[in-house]
């Protein structure tokens, strides 16, 4: 390479009027490449991608592995105290000054050794000890220096119960009617496997009675009461109609009471039967061995994790997922499943779709095909685009004030006067939530549909007109079919947005616990006035309103994973659809 560029590149040499010669550089300087700035821009992109990846990995990792059965450890402290449970996590911390000196001598010595080894920090572990009915706590922090020994007893058993949370222990006895029939862990386990199926079936039966039969009786009773109240409202308390209706009501009340007693009797029978079988486990409390008695009928699932093979653990894992997806929550939502939330989310999203798609398409058709293009239409278009950016909580405020308090209250006045002052529609419910979200997602559908309509080439419309088709025929046969993928994209994006939105739902009907699903077997089957559970609200509620937030943590992560999976799947589908649409129709972008 020559160092004199002028000689090689003769052409660019020009002589300016002033007589000076300008050199044209062949090589751009290092500075011109802007390498440092380029790295900063690339770093920003890398950081953004890192953040997404980190977040997804965190959620997926936590969500996937929380249901995997971990080992049960028995920790013996230097003080002789023992405890049995699952190690949830470990961390390092800096002790308060002087805290070590206050310890017992052997512990202090261990702590000092550890402090020296780890630069002034100590380790501790959070152990889930369960047995809330005995110990009064679900978790316990244990510092590493207190630990003298840690073993994994083969027969340590984890019992998931319907109430009081988990029980950890070593089975000692199986009692039937108070008599001990098995005394070794093996024998107890044998008995458990033999009898648990029947007990579980009885529990299912009891539950069916409680929610199904009693629900029906209560419903009938409520209907009768409302009928009487209606008569009272219409013709007064001293009318002949009321006099005729009251004995009828009393009769029905009597019948309901009898039916209730029958069901109650059956439930008692089941309870008595279930109470016959008990498992006694040894657990630790305050350094002593304490027996924990578990009724067989209360056991959701029990297993000895330390004895399980990989396949058996996989079985427990799958069964826990099944429970999570298909069962109702228990223990203040921190255990059990999220089926009502999945169902509530689905019902709400579907109703929302039924409302938002037709109206969104109508509005888009009007804007794109029927309205005369002009200032007003473009202003309306800008306004609609803007509404997509209006905070969702604002729609929630509107939904509460307009749908619940005005429309709903009017409906109550007109149709459900008998139930007042208890609101029927005058309160948050799945219908109002759906309508609110429909309003919220309307811009999404309108914009997507408009885009799709605009993408249909005008030549096709003109061809259709030239063949003599009327406008509606053209729209229906030519334009709409071509725009269908775009409309679907809009719908799916709206569903994704609706499924993930929580803020407005907090105002218009999402509930912590909704005892009844919005869709059930009692006439009229769909109950649009009912409150409902929602996956997103479930996350908020579990994470921030839960009494036992540490125990609820795994549930929050799995629910989060589920919600992200649903929303991401919907979004990916929409992106894929849009890409296909673009390939098909769009010639120029933007």
């Amino acid at each position, binding site marked *: 390479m020559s160092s004199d560029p002028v000689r090689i590149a003769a052409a660019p040499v020009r002589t300016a009027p002033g007589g000076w010669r300008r050199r044209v550089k062949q090589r751009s300087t290092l500075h011109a490449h802007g390498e440092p700035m380029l790295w*900063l*821009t*690339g770093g920003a992109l890398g950081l953004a991608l890192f953040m*997404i990846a980190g977040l997804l990995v965190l959620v997926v990792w936590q969500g996937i592995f929380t249901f995997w059965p971990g080992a049960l450890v028995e920790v013996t402290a230097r003080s002789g105290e023992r405890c049995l449970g699952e190690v949830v996590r470990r961390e390092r911390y800096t002790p308060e000054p002087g805290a070590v000196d206050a310890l017992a001598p052997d512990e202090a010595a261990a702590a000092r050794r550890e402090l020296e080894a780890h630069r002034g920090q100590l380790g501790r572990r959070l152990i889930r000890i369960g047995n809330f009915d005995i110990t009064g706590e679900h978790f316990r922090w244990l510092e590493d220096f207190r630990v003298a020994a840690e073993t994994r007893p083969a027969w340590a058993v984890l019992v998931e119960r319907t109430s009081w949370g988990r029980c950890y222990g070593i089975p000692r006895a199986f009692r039937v009617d108070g008599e001990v029939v098995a005394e070794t862990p093996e024998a107890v386990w044998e008995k458990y496997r033999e009898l648990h199926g029947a007990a579980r079936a009885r529990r299912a039966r009891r539950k069916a009675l409680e929610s199904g039969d009693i629900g029906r009786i209560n419903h009938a009773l409520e209907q009768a009461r409302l009928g009487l109240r209606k008569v009272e409202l219409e013709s007064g308390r001293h009318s002949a109609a009321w006099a005729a209706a009251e004995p009828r009501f009393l009769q029905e009340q009597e019948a309901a009471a009898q039916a209730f007693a029958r069901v109650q009797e059956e439930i008692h029978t089941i309870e008595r039967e279930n109470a016959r079988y008990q498992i006694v486990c040894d657990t630790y409390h305050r350094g002593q061995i304490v027996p924990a008695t578990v009724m067989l009928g209360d056991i959701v699932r029990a297993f000895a994790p330390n004895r399980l093979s990989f396949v058996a653990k996989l079985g427990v894992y799958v069964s826990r997922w099944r429970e999570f997806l298909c069962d109702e929550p228990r223990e203040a939502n921190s255990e059990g499943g999220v089926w009502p939330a999945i169902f509530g989310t689905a019902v709400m999203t579907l109703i929302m779709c039924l409302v938002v798609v037709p109206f969104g398409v109508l509005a888009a058709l009007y804007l794109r095909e029927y309205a005369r293009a002009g200032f007003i239409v473009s202003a309306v278009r800008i306004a609609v685009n803007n509404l997509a950016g*209006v905070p969702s909580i604002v729609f929630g405020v*509107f939904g509460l004030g307009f749908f619940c308090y005005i429309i709903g209250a009017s409906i109550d006045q007109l149709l459900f006067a008998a139930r007042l002052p208890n609101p029927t529609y005058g309160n948050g419910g799945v219908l109002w939530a759906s309508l609110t979200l429909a309003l919220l997602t309307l811009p999404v559908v309108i914009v997507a549909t408009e885009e799709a309509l605009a993408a249909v080439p005008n030549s096709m419309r003109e061809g259709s007109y030239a063949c003599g088709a009327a406008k509606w025929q053209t729209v229906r046969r030519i334009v709409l079919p071509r725009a269908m993928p775009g409309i679907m994209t809009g719908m799916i994006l709206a569903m*994704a*947005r609706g499924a993930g939105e929580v803020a407005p739902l907090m105002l218009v009907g999402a509930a912590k616990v909704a005892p009844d699903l919005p869709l059930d077997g009692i006439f009229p089957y769909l109950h649009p006035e009912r409150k409902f559970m929602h996956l997103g609200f479930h996350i908020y509620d579990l994470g921030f309103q839960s009494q036992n937030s540490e125990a609820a943590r795994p549930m929050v992560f799995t629910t989060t994973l589920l919600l992200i999976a649903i929303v991401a799947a919907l979004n990916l589908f929409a992106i894929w659809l849009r890409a296909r649409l673009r390939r098909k129709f769009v010639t120029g972008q933007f």
Partner: protein
Amino acid sequence: MSTPRFTGRARQYRSGATVRILDRVSRWAITVGGIGTLVSILLVSVFLIWVAVPLFFPTRMSAPHRPAEGAAALDAAPLHLEVDEHRRLGWLVTREGTLEVFRLDSGRRLERRPLFPEAEMTAAAFSRQDDRVAFGFVDGTVRLGRIAFWVRFLREAEVPPELRSLSAGGLGEMAGGLVVRTPEGMFRLQGVDVELEPPIPSGSAAPVLRIDQTVTAAGPVYAVLTADGKLRVNAVEERENLLTGETEIELAGGEVPLAAAGAGGLPDFVRISGLGDALYVAWRDGRIQRFLTRDPRRPVLAETRDLEPGPARVTSLSWLLGRFTLLVGNDQGGLSGWFLTRREGVSTPDGRVLTRAHTFAPGAAAVTAIASSARTRLVAAAHADGEVRLLLATTAAELAASRTADGRPLAVLAVAPREDAVVGISASGLNAWEVNARHPEASLAALFTPVWYEGHDRRAHIWQSSSGADDFEMKLGLMPLVFGTLKATLYSLLFGVPIALLAAIYTAEFMHRRVRMLVKPAVELMAGLPSVVLGFLAGLVFAPFVEQVLPAVLAAFLMVPLALLVGAYLWQLLPAPLTLRFSGWRFVFIAAALPLGILAGAILGPAAERALFAGDLRAWLDGQRGSATGGWFVILLPLGALLTAAGMGARINPWFRAATAALAPRPVAVLDLVRFIVGVVLAVMIALGLALGLTGLGMDPRGSVVGTYVQRNALVVGFVMGFAIIPIIYTIAEDALSAIPEHLRSASLGAGATPWQTAVRIVIPTAMGGLFSAVMIGLGRAVGETMIVLMAAGNTPLIDWNLFNGFRTLSANIAVELPEAVRNSTHYRTLFLAALTLFAMTFVLNTVAEIVRLKFRRRSHEL
């Protein structure tokens, strides 16, 4: 003309009837449906306005209503007047100790009974808030008790026959009270109930001149001034005798050292505060003394002040609801509100002084009566020229004014319990005004300017909409919430905007097409993440994590860019063929620099904590230890870097470029690295110098942009909100950049510009409009984001720039409070106003962004 027919089928030239009808119907349906849908969207804003606007409707006060019979029947100058909540009945107590019960509609007296037939009453005190009364007698005894309205619904059989035919809303009289037929058809009997406890001694045998009482958590406390000049405070304790089962009354009290307070005759007013801990004694000339009576056995003089420094004389002194604020009326029409505030350097034993907090607009003539509502801080004041004014104590605003029918002054005044009427008695009888106060607490001044709330030391912006206490003063300052919204937006934009824009530039300009097709949907996917997920992660994962490793996190914010820059300068050192060969993999190297930067932060953070923050950053932030230098240094480091970069760009770089133009690339790269290292050292020196200088000046960053660390804070929110706004800004910005026509780039590259020069000088300026609108839309999203701030910001409504403190935004406030707000209450409407504010903010931002975007789009089409 005949058309040739080839098919033999007659050709139809007209559309069929069904087609035409269908076409008409569909056009109609689509037009109606479309317009309806659009209108329904716009309905949102209309509805918000419709709910929020009544907040600002003025208070209405009707012309005075004068019942016909009221003129002569009632006592002309009673001591106290009270009205029931349905505005049917009233009672008054005369100076002689007679109770009169009367109908409000006609003024007809229903009952007149002497309360104390065998004793002579000489003083009385009334409390509208809890219906409590206290009477003092000529023999020096005191009786406490209650006079209250009662309501009972009659059974059909109890209703006298002549009243059975009452129409709804009709009134009738029967023994024991007034019967009202309710709209539901029930018969409601109303009356007045008097419960008086047996006399208790006041500690002196002289006639009682002044009396006041209050009920504290421990029991009643009363203050009595007797004619012999003795002022005593007594706390009444009721005790059940275990043997007899009777309640015994025990008095604990002491004499107030009035003599020590100076001469000037006996005091004209004696007032005891709601908690019974302060006794005020005032004279007509404006002198007031405050005694501490927390221990009633030993009252202590706290301070002496002058309520009326001018010649004016006090004519009326009464409590506002809650018995904490004294309302003072004078003979020139002036009216003011006084309460205790804490002041630096005062000599009172409790460090507090009675302060004039509210000065109302004066009336034309002397104040004759003041009545405060039992529900809010609404006050009615009557003047000697017959004027009656409605005032709000919180903001010292005059809400409405009227005049008595004949211009005679009112001797007593009452505000109806539901604040729907004001009733007064003048020498010529009863005067009543219908009032519709609507929402007095929520004026523009109350919402957006600092207000002096009861018990606070100065005017302040405070949001506190509810409390457990009945006599709670609503604090509806929206500014803390607006501030919180701005704080969240600012910190999240500070983090999000640079990353999003830079990432978009890299994607659009330097990334291979195929990689771009993968990267963009991935970032867009992040845009679809439900914000509740982000909020949950922010609150329960990031916040505790950041709290543990705060120094490392802060160091990483500085080290990551540094690592990238170091990487870039090292990359320049590589021989050209090598960089060319690996240029496709450059992004991998860039990505590898990130974890190195984070690692460097993790190592350097704790070290910096030891060096700069006395080993404990959080204790340093609390202000417990360390000097200000470390903090200033860290805060000023970015500034130092910017200054250095600017200085280098302006002075050193042109010279450097000229000087190295003739050199080969490698030595230039080495020199460039040296220049960079010098720059870093310079930046550090500048920051250190400034930090030392500022510390030397005695300034400390703690208490302003940094301060006490709270787990859920603006740092966490800013970071996590980045997840929400980065994808949005990124997508729109990337769209704008890739929309720049390819021929512009080709021309620039063809003219010899490097890709970087092309990006900076051609593409970015052309796409500026699109980038701007991207930032605006990101801003709109940050303003309205609810779940993240709800879960990660701690929700404390504070005005504090501290990066490590929480805040409450408008949106989170709505989510927290609206479910509990009573429909159509002031609180409810204020929350709607907050929603409307949010709506307007985002709507304006988005409209600006959209218009800029459209303009930009037109321009880029023209190119």
